C-alpha cells in the first residue's frame, strides 16, 4: 500500500511522539467536570502544522468506489493543506474495533476524526469521552456538542437515473443491490423507482440485500439472480463495481454509484451517482483551523458533491434529454418526491399535496409500492 503524502513523516521526532501520547493520556484522564468547563480545542484557531485530521474508511481505498471517493477527498485535503497531517485507516470493521481505532486516533492527537461511513455508537461513545476533538460521521444521525454528520442527497440523482431506466427497460423490472435494509438503501431504491414510475407506473423494482458493502462475489451472485428473474436494468448501492460486469455479460444495462465507471463496461453502463467529497472535506478542515467548526448535520446536494455521471454511449438521446430536463428543474429547486406515495404494504405514506423533505428521505425506513425485497 503506497500513498503519497504524510505517511512516514507522521511522527517525525521522538519528542513529538511522546508529546502526542502524553496529550492523549491527559485528555482522557481529566475528570469529567474539568473537561466540561474547558473550552474544546476545536473552538480555537489551530496552526496548520499542528493539526492532525484522521479518517476511518469502511473499505479498502482501492475498492474502486465508496472508500476510493473518500480517499480522493483526503488527497485533496493534503494538497490544500500541505503542512497538515492526515492519518487514515482502511477497512474499519463495524464492531467494537471501530471504537478502538477512533480512540487511538484521539490518543495520537487528532483534533478532527472523520468516519467516512456510518459507525453509530462506535463513534459516539468515543466522541462523548473526547470533547476536545471534532468528530464527523458520514451517514450518521447524531449531533452532539462535538459530533456532526454529513451525507449526500443522492436521491435526486437516483430519481434522474430512474427516468432513464424506465425508458430503457423492456421487462419493466429494475434490479437493485443493497447491503442492508437501512435508510440510505431505502432512499436510493425508492427514488430510483419513483423516477421510473414517473414515466411508466407499471415498473417494479426487485431488491436484494447482501449483508455487505464490499463483497464482489456476493454482489455478482445477487446480480445474476436478479437477471435470472427478468430484471434488465441493474442499479444499487455497492462500494465496488462487480454488478456492472454481470450486466455486461448478460447484455443488460446498469447504473452505478460512487464514481464514473464507464471504462468497466461501456456497453452496459448507463450512468452513475457520482460523489465528490473533496470540497466538503477541505471546508471542514478550513473551519477546524479557523476555530469556526460547528457540529451539525449537512447534506451535499445535487450539483454540489453528488450528481449523475455523463450518460453512457447506449443511452438514447431522447431518454437522456428527458432525464436532464428533470435535473435542470431539480437544480432550480424542484422536489419530485410529492404525494400521493404509497408504501409496498399499500399504506398511504405521503398524502397528495405534501412533499418529502431531504431529512425525511434520509430517515426512510419503508419502501414505496412496487419495491420487493425490502420490507
Amino acid at each position, binding site marked *: 500500500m503506497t500513498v503519497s503524502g504524510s505517511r512516514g513523516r507522521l511522527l517525525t521526532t521522538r519528542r513529538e511522539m511522546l508529546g502526542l*501520547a502524553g496529550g492523549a493520556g491527559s485528555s*482522557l484522564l481529566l475528570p469529567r467536570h474539568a473537561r466540561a468547563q474547558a473550552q474544546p480545542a476545536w473552538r480555537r484557531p489551530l496552526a496548520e502544522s499542528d493539526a492532525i485530521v484522521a479518517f476511518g474508511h469502511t473499505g479498502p481505498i482501492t475498492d474502486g468506489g465508496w472508500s476510493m471517493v473518500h480517499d480522493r477527498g483526503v488527497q485533496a485535503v493534503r494538497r490544500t493543506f500541505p503542512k497538515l497531517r492526515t492519518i487514515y*485507516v482502511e477497512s474499519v470493521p463495524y464492531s467494537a*474495533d471501530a471504537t*478502538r481505532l477512533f480512540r487511538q486516533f484521539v490518543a*495520537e492527537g487528532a483534533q478532527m476524526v472523520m468516519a467516512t461511513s456510518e459507525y453509530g455508537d462506535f463513534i459516539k461513545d468515543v466522541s462523548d469521552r473526547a470533547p476536545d476533538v471534532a468528530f464527523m460521521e458520514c451517514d450518521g444521525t447524531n449531533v452532539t456538542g462535538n459530533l456532526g454528520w454529513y451525507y449526500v442527497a443522492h436521491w435526486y440523482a437516483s430519481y434522474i437515473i430512474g427516468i432513464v431506466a424506465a425508458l430503457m427497460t423492456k421487462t419493466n423490472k429494475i434490479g437493485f443491490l443493497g447491503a442492508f*435494509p*437501512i435508510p440510505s438503501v431505502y432512499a436510493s431504491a425508492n427514488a430510483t423507482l419513483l423516477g421510473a414510475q414517473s414515466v411508466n407506473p407499471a415498473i417494479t423494482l426487485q431488491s436484494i*440485500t447482501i449483508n455487505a458493502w464490499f463483497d464482489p462475489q456476493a454482489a455478482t451472485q445477487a446480480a445474476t439472480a436478479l437477471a435470472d428473474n427478468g430484471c434488465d436494468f441493474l442499479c444499487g448501492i455497492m462500494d465496488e463495481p462487480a454488478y456492472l460486469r454481470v450486466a455486461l455479460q448478460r447484455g443488460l444495462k446498469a447504473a452505478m454509484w460512487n464514481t464514473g465507471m464507464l471504462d468497466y463496461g461501456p456497453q452496459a453502463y448507463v450512468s452513475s451517482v457520482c460523489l465528490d467529497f473533496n470540497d466538503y472535506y477541505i471546508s471542514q478542515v478550513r473551519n477546524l483551523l479557523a476555530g469556526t467548526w460547528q457540529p451539525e448535520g449537512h447534506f451535499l446536494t445535487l450539483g454540489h458533491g453528488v450528481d449523475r455521471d455523463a450518460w453512457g454511449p447506449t443511452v438514447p438521446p431522447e431518454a437522456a434529454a428527458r432525464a436532464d430536463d428533470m435535473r435542470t428543474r431539480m437544480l432550480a429547486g424542484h422536489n419530485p418526491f410529492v404525494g400521493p406515495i404509497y408504501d409496498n404494504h399499500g399504506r398511504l405514506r405521503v398524502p397528495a399535496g405534501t412533499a418529502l423533505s431531504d431529512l425525511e428521505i434520509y430517515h426512510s425506513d419503508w419502501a414505496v409500492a412496487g419495491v420487493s425485497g425490502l*420490507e
Partner: protein
Amino acid sequence: MATRAFQRLPTAPAGRILALRLVAIAVSLCIIAGVLALSGHSPAMLAELILRSTLGSRFGLEDLMLFMCPLLLTGAAVTVCGTIGLWNIGAEGQFYAGAIAATGVALGLHGPVLVVLPLMTIAGILGGMAWITVPTLARAYAGVNEIITTLLLNFIASLLTYYLTTGPWRDRISGAQVSTQRLSVSMPEMWGIVHWGFPVAIMIVVGLALVLSRTRWGYEIRMGGANPEAARYAGIPVRLRIISVMLLSGGLAGLAGMFEVAGTVHRLQGGMANNFGYLGIVVAVLARGSCLNVIPAALLMALILDSGIVMQTQQLSASVILAITGLILFMIAIGDELAHYRPVATTPAKGKA
C-alpha cells in the same frame, strides 16, 4: 568421543516453554522490525507508540482489558473442552447465540437493571449451551466429530444474527445498520470503559482452574481426556462428563457474547463477535490446556490485537497486521515444539564403530 544429540520428550517443563516463547517473540519482533525498517518505518518509534498506547497509558490498559474480557471466556471455553480431549471450534457461534439470547431478554423485558441484567446473564449462558447441544449429543451418543459440527453452527449463528438485526429486531429508532436498538440496560462500568464483566471473567477462569484441579469432577474430566478407555474402566461416566464439559464450554462462550452485548457494544450487531470465538482457540493453544494460563494467553492476544490497531493508524494496512500476528503465533508454535527437545550426550556403545 561423546556427540551431542537432541531427544524429543513427550512433555516440556513450563519454564523451558516460557523461555523459548520469549525467545520466539523476540525473534519475530526482530524480523518485523527489520521489515518495517526496510519499508521506511521507524521500528523504535512504532514500538514506543505501541507500548504507550497499550500498557503505558490508562486508555491503553482500558482497551486491553476490554479486549481480554471475551478472550478470557472463549479461551476458557476451548480450554475446558480440550481437557477432556475435545475441540470446541464453535465458540464463535455460541458467542452469537449467547448474545442473541441476552438481547432477546433485554428487548422483551423492561425492568430494573438488577433484575434484567442477571436474567440476561442466565439467558446468555443458556443460549451458548443451547447452541452446542446438538454437537454435544451427537458426540456423546453417535461419536460424531465435534470439530465439524461446532464449526458449521458458527455460520448459522452468524447468519441468524444478520437476519435478526436486519429483520425483526432491526433498529427502527436511529436506523443504525445491522443493529438492534441500543439496549436500555448495560453492564455497569468499573474503570473507564472497562465494565464489570472483566473481573467476573477473571474470577470464572480462576474458579475453573480450581474446579478442574481440585474436584473429583475435574479429575474425572482430566482422566477422560488423558485416557478415555482407562477412565471408563475406572468407572468414570465418560459420556456424561463429555456432555457436562461441552455444555459448560458453550455456556462460557455464550456468557462472553452476553458481556460483549451488555458491556461493550450495547446492541446486538451482525459481525459483533469480531472473531473472538476463533481467537479463543488461539488463546487455548497458547494456554496449553491450563485454565490459569488462559489469563496471560488472553493478555498476549489482546496485546497483539491492540498493537494491530495502533499500527493501522500508522498507515500499516490490515493485511500487514494479519501477517505480523501470524508470524508471532507461528514463532511461538516453533518455540513450543523446540521446548520438547532436550540435549543429551550420547557415547557410542561399546562394540560398535
